[in-house]
């Protein structure tokens, strides 16, 4: 585990494929003293030591865009290289095998499982919007120093079903438990938005910025 300030060339790549605003992700790292760069061209990601896949909106639309802009193979190769890769919100969902929105759409296939619509179960409303805490959080460098009972900001209508239990990093209680964070080797996913969760979220971003991808 790498600690301390990053070296000058240790810039974090933030993938821009047109889904959702990246400002807060980049600004969050900037606030923490790390440099993050928005990258629109998949050919360029290989020079970066760590990568963020953000996203809000439609799984189907996002995968279509990733495919058409040539991101899919590059992202899979990046993951295979062992460098830290973090998917946030829709970005975490895209890591999975497939999503059921508007019919089945294949995902990146980095985490076994699928993405399904949350069913409202009164009093629980969909979308799941607001601050909620994590349960059964496993130890992982991304949660280094994070307090167990704090709340993070969630905003989503779909959730992930992980078929490999060992990939589940944390759950959240909302009309039943759902997967709130996943990790498989160097690939991590957070269903909530760390860049919108103020100090507790920034803490996780800082951990990611200093993580070498190994557990």
């Amino acid at each position, binding site marked *: 585990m790498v600690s301390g300030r990053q070296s000058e060339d240790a810039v974090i790549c933030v993938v821009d494929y047109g889904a959702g605003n990246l400002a807060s992700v980049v600004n969050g790292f900037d606030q923490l003293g790390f440099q993050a760069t928005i990258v629109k061209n998949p050919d360029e990601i290989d020079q970066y030591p760590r990568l963020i896949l953000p996203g809000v909106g439609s799984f189907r639309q996002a995968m279509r865009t990733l495919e058409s802009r040539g991101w899919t193979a590059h992202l899979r190769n990046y993951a295979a290289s062992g460098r830290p890769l973090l998917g946030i919100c829709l970005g975490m969902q895209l890591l999975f095998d497939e999503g059921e929105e508007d019919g089945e759409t294949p995902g990146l296939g980095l985490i076994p499982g699928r993405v399904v619509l949350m069913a409202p179960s009164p*009093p629980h409303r*969909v*979308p799941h919007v*607001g601050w909620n*805490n994590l349960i059964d959080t496993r130890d992982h460098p991304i949660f280094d120093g994070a*307090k167990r009972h704090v709340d993070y900001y969630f905003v989503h*209508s779909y959730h992930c079903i992980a078929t490999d239990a060992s990939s589940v990093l944390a759950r959240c209680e*909302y009309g039943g438990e759902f997967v709130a964070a996943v990790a498989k080797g160097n690939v991590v996913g957070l269903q909530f938005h760390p*860049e919108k969760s103020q*100090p507790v979220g920034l803490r996780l971003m800082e951990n990611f910025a200093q993580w070498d991808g190994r557990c």
Partner: protein
Amino acid sequence: MGWQVLKRRVIPVLLLRDGRMVKGRQFKDFRDTGEPRTAVRIYSAQDSDELVFLDIHPSRESRAAMIGVVRVAATECFMPMAAGGGISTIEDAHQLILAGADKVVVTTAAVTDPPLISRIAKHFGTQAVVAGIDYRGREDEARVWIRSGSEMTAIDPIEHARNLVELGAGEILINSIDRDGMMQGYDLEMTARVSDAVSVPVITCGGAGNFMHLVEVFRNSKASAVACASLFHFGDNNPIRARTYLRNQDIPMRVLR
């Protein structure tokens, strides 16, 4: 410690005109109350659950100024933000989202061009669309008003809420014009009826004058959040104190540390 549940939200609302903060009563007599950047910094420092920016004078210039406010806010605070006021096209919504808003609030267009709600939801996801409903009147006489409360419609707010959710709204922001700025408490009856009528989160706005008013909402309705414009303008009232007060009343509130 240990509510394992979605917390209730307390959301400061910043009303804007031409990029300046304004405050009014019952959607009238708006006066300038300062620079939004200052308020945003304070709300951020106080770890507000979320912020809502509403442009009350939707002209192109006013909206451009609001986009600027949102853009600056996104560089300085790392919290959820919603913004609205005069959104009438996908491009309007896109500009705000690009600037840093997580959600857009669509109020007048929800009446004049309801399919816009669906289009924005399809493009950005339902969680990115908050349908705003401004209304006057009580119970069965309540009617939706548009264009910052200047134009009446014959629409019933409850039915409107249901329709908007069908169209793809991810949240409903129900706003009582009569109670706006009066600090006499929220319209609990309408809040309860709306939150019973839909299965998406409901944010209620209009009337908060003290912290007990916030508690009343959560005790008497299924609202997920309370929005406050005037409440936090007064010195001692701030989101930190609100959170503590509500927690002490056993309302599940966000835990920061």
